[in-house]
């Protein structure tokens, strides 16, 4: 009796094909959802950014680069001269500045916090991590209003400073960039602490001892040994804080009042009172591109960290 080699193989191939077909079928709902819910709207936004605004809202289906042009430049109403859109630049600059400051503040506050937690014993660690994650359980808007209550002229911050005699009358914190910064640092601090904790927790403290042994003092050990090793955690935390900060909407809206807008508020304005959907769309795409650039930077920074082999 001879075995026909071809036959079982073709049966096997068919089984594989069937399995692939079934897998496709099973993942179809998810793929559809992604296409409809994520890529679809994104595509609409992209298309809208190349159209003209309608008179009251919506878009007119005429191709135009005007929205992209408007991001940076404005045309004088009277003599049609082209100038830089100062108001826009101010908003961009404020967004980037506040996001970078938020990242820096959370990093400076988060690093010792994460170090403290990572060096506790097992059960204490769980407790502190639990405390860090508690704010996530409450709605962002409610937490932001709580911050607003504290920063008010008659709020707890001003009242305590006055009762301590440090200031004579309330200082205006609310509706300033400082208020926005405080709010964002508060909201995004856990996003910095958690990746930092993960990085420090993995740090081999014998390396720290080796550093001390090789004549490095505390600062040098921190700079030359600890910092480079936990760098992926720092980059991850910074991206996690920077990206949502840049697109923040609620915090600047509540704590910054109407005046101190960030990109997120400005985009919202275009779809509302501004009645300029194409500009709003082009701004959204721009924001997306900045975020993607940041993520790309993260990927490169973290992949360079790992030596090959």
């Amino acid at each position, binding site marked *: 009796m001879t075995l026909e080699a071809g036959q079982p193989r073709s049966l096997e191939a068919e089984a594989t094909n069937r399995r692939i077909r079934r897998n496709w079928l099973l993942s179809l709902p998810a793929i559809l959802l992604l296409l409809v819910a994520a890529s679809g709207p994104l595509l609409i936004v992209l298309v809208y950014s190349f159209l003209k605004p309608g008179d009251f809202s919506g878009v007119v289906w005429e191709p135009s680069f005007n929205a992209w042009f408007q991001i940076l430049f404005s045309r004088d109403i009277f003599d049609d001269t082209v100038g830089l859109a100062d108001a826009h630049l101010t908003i961009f600059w404020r967004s980037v500045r506040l996001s970078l400051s938020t990242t820096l503040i959370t990093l400076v506050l988060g690093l010792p916090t994460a170090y403290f937690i990572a060096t506790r014993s097992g059960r204490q660690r769980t407790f502190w991590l639990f405390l860090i994650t508690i704010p996530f359980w409450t709605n962002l808007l409610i937490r932001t209003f709580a911050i607003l209550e504290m920063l008010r002229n008659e709020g707890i911050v001003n009242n305590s400073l006055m009762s301590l005699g440090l200031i004579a009358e309330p200082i205006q914190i609310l509706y300033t960039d400082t208020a926005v910064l405080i709010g964002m640092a508060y909201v995004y601090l856990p996003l910095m602490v958690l990746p930092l904790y993960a990085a420090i927790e993995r740090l081999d403290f014998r390396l720290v*001892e*080796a*550093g*001390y*042994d*090789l*004549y*490095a003092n505390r600062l040098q050990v921190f700079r030359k040994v600890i910092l480079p090793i936990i760098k992926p955690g720092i980059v991850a935390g910074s991206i996690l804080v920077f990206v949502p900060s840049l697109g923040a909407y609620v915090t600047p809206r509540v704590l910054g009042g109407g005046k101190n807008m960030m990109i997120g508020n400005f985009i919202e304005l275009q779809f509302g009172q501004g009645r300029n959907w194409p500009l709003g769309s082009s701004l959204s795409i721009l924001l997306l591109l900045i975020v993607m650039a940041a993520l790309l930077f993260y990927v490169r920074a973290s992949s360079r960290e790992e030596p090959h*082999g």
Partner: protein
Amino acid sequence: MSDIAVSAQSITKVFGSLSGGLRALDDVSVDIKTNEFFTLLGPSGCGKTTLLRLIAGFETPTFGSIVLEGVDITTDPPFKRPVNTVFQSYALFPHLTVAQNVGFGLEMLGKTKKEITHAVDEVLALVRMEEMAHRYPSQLSGGQQQRVALARALAPKPSVLLLDEPLSALDLKLRKQMQIELKRMQMETGITFIFVTHDQEEALTMSDRIAVMSAGRIQQIGAPRDIYNAPTNRFVADFIGESNFLPAEVAEVGMVTLANGNKVPAVVPDDLVTGSKVTVSIRPEQVELDPAGEGVLAGTITELVYFGTDMHAHVDLGDGSVLVARVQAEADRSLVKGEQAGVRFASGGLRVVEDGS
């Protein structure tokens, strides 16, 4: 004074509270000579690593002081001590290349780039790792990492090099090779080596002097040969090599009476009076087997364990104690399990040991 590299003076180290804490070292004093290959030997938990870490500065003693070349360094932080450590885990910096790892100490000491490059080349040549200079630790084998760790600790030319079980992670063949190389490097550099190990063979092979430790105390300090041939107490006799222990009674100068009443010559300390109950030790290779009826003791051969050139014969003495004799496997084919045999001791082999740990 200057021929003492490190002097540990009445060191006590307690982890936790003074009364209830763990007493890792209990009033330990030891002088380690300059250019010496000194080994701290003992089972895990005996305090040897703690003593090393105290010298390195990672721990501070609860009582006592540490003097390095005449200078009290008890409270100095590690980075102010001219002492470097080879860690058991190697602890190489994963983000730095081999050359950068080795140059780390020199960089921290503020040496110029040129000096660092020169010293790194030199020490990498010493450990035969020149070709690996630009690799990262993760690209090296265990043995290579070991050499880099050694190079890194040697590069700043410390007064004393501390080695914390550096060979324990290597396989047997590599370990033997590194033992010889370590000894060579110690000779070439002239640096005092303080070596921690639980491997008695390693200690005997490499050391100029050994301190045998147990339960936070030093049991005996001496040259490998002295420690092996003349252990002062039962712990040392048992831990270094193998030993048989027998109950005996001091008979007269240089003689003890065994359990069966026979008097045999033994090394007896002068301060023991006749009639004292003692324990005598004898190495298996110093136990000789005779035909039944001869020798100072009689027993039954219960087990024959073959080791290649040698064989261990277990002899049941009838009173519950079993004596192990090491005999040449080829010469003593006459030995048969279950047969009676006489036992004789090589002269000078039997010695009285202190019972205390």
